[in-house]
């Protein structure tokens, strides 16, 4: 048995520590380690959670022990903190094992016996919710089109994260105090649920937000569940508790990724113009998905992008199943439908023999635009035009595309032993401030205070370091003061607490507008009013926004960035390995506040997305070239545009290199081999 000196107490600093590094402030307090006891059954009625010889100091906590309600509420969805009766999926937490030794707790949890009766009516996969968008008459016109392409795309977005696994440190050892340290991305949600499960008062809860570098949107509400479990354990054993998922649990239940199937049926003319299009999206929502309505709506909006076929039918279905809850929020999943859409356009260009850019333009700007009266989704595609032109110029796309097509032809006539090349183009947008969301992003407020010493405090959640630099820079310029005088304070009290998850706030588009409003307001009253001055602003709905949630029509986003990407790669025909040579982007996102930060953000996203496009391979690009089509318009978000553009451009390039249409992502050496070998 190992005996070691006790870890020294670490000071708890807001946003400056990892929760797993936090230890009790008092040397006398013993830290307990918690592990989740998971159901080995995918369905059934829970009977017991037992262990024959549980050592002293170790305790099993089940749903019966929860001091408050056994319920986590997220919007209009609720789920059990610990399964009490019904088991919904394999791996569902049914209890918590708490003990003083981490290694021993981890090993004991494997020995706990969970028993359950089989459920009387076994759950099956069922269609749950759906959103349909129609225009014209797809069924009547599809068969009349001169050309048809039907493809089904299967995509699983699984990004591997190697950052701290999710969990929480909780200290509820004192009856009237609750301290929770966790990398929460939705502090208001966590607070409300802590009140619910602990049956305590709001003011007794103190939440310390710790560092998080996991971009997975599923952590938004999963983290609340884990933090509440840690808090319940701590309240019951009356000691500080650290609950940290193992790497396997993190990958299996949180970073497991979302699977989508997208079926496209497209009828088009000789010139590539789509006249009839049907898109059916099937989304596995698992046993429940807290943001289901929003996910469904966003997938529906993105399924046809900004293209305008004369007859359109979009159907999105969520499938309920005995699998873990869907992990992503909508903006983490829409890239999968973007890939399917752009790949379908690429298939049309190959079928018609037209250049991919020409096919895209033909469908962004259809011949008889005036016939699209009251089109359900409206986008200003004019802004995409310069980006699409520019990306072709800087990448020499037209020439390379034709040249590599010849290479394709030669491949069939000669022995293929040299690397083949492929180049692919994609275009699209990133929308921010989704107006059909039940979480109204335009209801956010921000306050800025300048005190008597000239110190400026921006009261809002702490954004990423790069965004924080941009806010500081902008506030300093607007208030004519030193950058060192600007501080961001994310310690909330009561009514000031942000209602939205951090990831949904629109740090550049919406919050930057609020920051400007606050600073301008302070500047106006600065010489008429004594210091300190506080300006608190809320966004009013801009007049140009035309979204109607009742009819589900209009422009669905507060702001949109447009972009186009080209990927050039080579494929080793002996190793079936992909080598990404160049990636070019052109992006139209209004005013660029900090070019270096914007470029770094695009490059980092490129490396992150490339890493998941080919399984078990650390893919990276030799060169990433970025051009911004800058304007004086309000700045817009660009953080997620890469994930909407890159997979499709990559798939198009692979398609050209191997001569087979890519319908499944991620790829692997086997799938490339099969594509190359198939006739």
């Amino acid at each position, binding site marked *: *048995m*190992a*005996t*070691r*000196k006790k*870890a*020294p107490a*670490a000071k708890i600093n807001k946003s400056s520590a*990892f929760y*797993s*590094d936090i230890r009790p402030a008092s040397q006398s307090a013993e830290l307990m380690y918690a592990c989740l006891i998971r159901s080995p059954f995918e369905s059934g009625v829970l009977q017991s959670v037992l262990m024959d010889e549980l050592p002293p100091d170790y305790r099993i906590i089940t749903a019966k022990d929860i001091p408050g309600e056994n319920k986590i509420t997220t919007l209009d969805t609720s789920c059990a903190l610990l399964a009490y009766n019904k088991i919904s999926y394999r791996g569902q937490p049914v209890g918590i094992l708490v003990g003083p030794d*981490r*290694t021993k707790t981890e090993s004991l949890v494997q020995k706990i016996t969970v028993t359950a009766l089989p459920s009387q009516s076994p759950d099956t996969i069922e269609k749950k919710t759906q959103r349909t968008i129609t225009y014209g008459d797809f069924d009547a016109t599809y068969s009349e089109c001169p050309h048809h392409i039907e493809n089904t795309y299967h995509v699983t977005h699984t990004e*591997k994260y*190697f*950052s*701290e*696994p999710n969990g929480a440190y909780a200290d509820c050892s004192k009856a009237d105090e609750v301290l929770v340290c966790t990398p929460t991305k939705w502090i208001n949600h966590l607070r409300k649920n802590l009140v619910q499960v602990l049956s305590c008062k709001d003011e007794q809860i103190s939440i310390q937000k710790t*560092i998080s*570098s996991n971009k997975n949107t599923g952590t938004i509400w999963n983290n609340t569940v884990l933090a509440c479990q840690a808090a319940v354990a701590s309240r019951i054993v009356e000691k500080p508790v650290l609950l940290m998922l193992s*790497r396997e649990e993190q990958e299996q239940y949180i970073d497991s990724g979302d699977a989508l199937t997208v079926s496209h049926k497209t009828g088009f003319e000789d010139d590539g113009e789509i006249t009839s299009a049907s898109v059916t999206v099937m989304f596995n929502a698992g046993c429940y998905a807290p943001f289901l309505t929003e996910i469904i709506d966003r997938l529906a909006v993105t399924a046809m992008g900004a293209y305008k076929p004369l007859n359109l039918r979009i159907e999105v279905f969520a499938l309920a199943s005995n699998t873990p809850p869907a992990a992503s929020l909508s903006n983490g999943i829409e890239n999968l439908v973007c890939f399917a859409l752009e790949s379908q356009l690429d298939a049309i260009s190959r079928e018609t023999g037209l250049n991919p850019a020409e096919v895209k333009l033909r469908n962004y700007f259809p011949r008889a635009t005036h016939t699209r009266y009251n089109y359900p989704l409206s986008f200003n595609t004019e802004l995409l035009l310069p980006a699409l032109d520019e990306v072709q110029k800087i990448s020499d796309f037209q020439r390379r595309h034709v040249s590599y097509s010849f290479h394709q032809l030669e491949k069939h006539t000669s022995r293929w032993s040299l690397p083949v090349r492929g180049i692919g183009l994609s275009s699209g947008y990133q929308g921010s401030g989704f107006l059909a969301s039940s979480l109204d992003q335009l209801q956010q407020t921000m306050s800025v205070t300048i005190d008597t010493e000239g110190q400026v405090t921006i009261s809002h959640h702490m954004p990423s*370091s790069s965004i924080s630099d941009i806010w500081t820079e902008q506030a300093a310029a607007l208030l004519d003061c030193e950058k060192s005088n600007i501080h961001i304070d994310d310690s909330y009290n009561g009514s000031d607490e942000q209602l939205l998850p951090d990831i949904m706030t629109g740090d550049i588009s919406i919050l930057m507008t609020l920051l400007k409003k606050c600073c301008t307001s302070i500047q106006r009253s600065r010489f008429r009013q004594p210091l300190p001055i506080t300006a608190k602003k809320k966004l009013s709905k801009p007049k140009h926004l035309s979204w109607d949630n009742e009819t589900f029509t209009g422009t669905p986003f507060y702001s949109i960035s447009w972009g186009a990407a080209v990927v050039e790669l080579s494929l080793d025909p002996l190793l079936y390995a992909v080598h990404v040579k160049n990636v070019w982007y052109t992006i139209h996102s209004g005013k660029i506040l900090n070019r*270096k930060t914007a470029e*770094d953000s695009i*490059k*980092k996203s490129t*490396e*992150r997305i490339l*890493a998941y496009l080919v399984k078990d391979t*650390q893919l*990276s690009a030799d060169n990433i070239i970025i051009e911004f089509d800058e304007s004086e318009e309000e700045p817009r978000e660009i953080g997620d545009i890469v994930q909407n553009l890159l997979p499709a451009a990559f798939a198009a390039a692979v398609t050209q290199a191997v001569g087979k249409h890519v319908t499944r992502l991620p790829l692997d050496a086997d799938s490339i081999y099969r594509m190359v070998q198939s006739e």
Partner: protein
Amino acid sequence: MKIPFNLNGDDIVIDSEPDEKLINILRDSGNFSVKCGCNTGHCGSCTILVDDKPVPSCLLTAAAVRDCVVVTLEAFRKNIFWKDIETGFRQCGVHLCGYCDAGKIFAAYDLIKTEQRPAKENVIEIMNQFPCKCCEIEALANGVLAAATVHKKRMTGKQNGKQ
């Protein structure tokens, strides 16, 4: 089993199972710079220096460091070499996420120590092995090269001073 080794300059003897992972021992003794990333030696977050060589501590058992000199990032940050790396990283705007720091910093240390002028391609290749994409790879490579320059200047300056 009693295992003696030198941890961050202190000669210590731990009483541990011989197959217990070093990462757990180091974290339990308060060395929180050693992070548990992948538990397979792939991500580099748990890297430490064992006899001045970067090694993933999640793949080492306690018995493997018997009579070795183990240095974690906590102690390395007091070293003058760290100042060179910090300066180089700052010059090139490299901000690490805090979780992968040990792997990247010790890899940079090893590169600068073994090669006076590391080639950029070599640096990129090494840094690309770390799956954490918290900072842009080219900026990171430039940071390592800048750190190498700072280190070289400092070393040359010292030598000149002695002369």
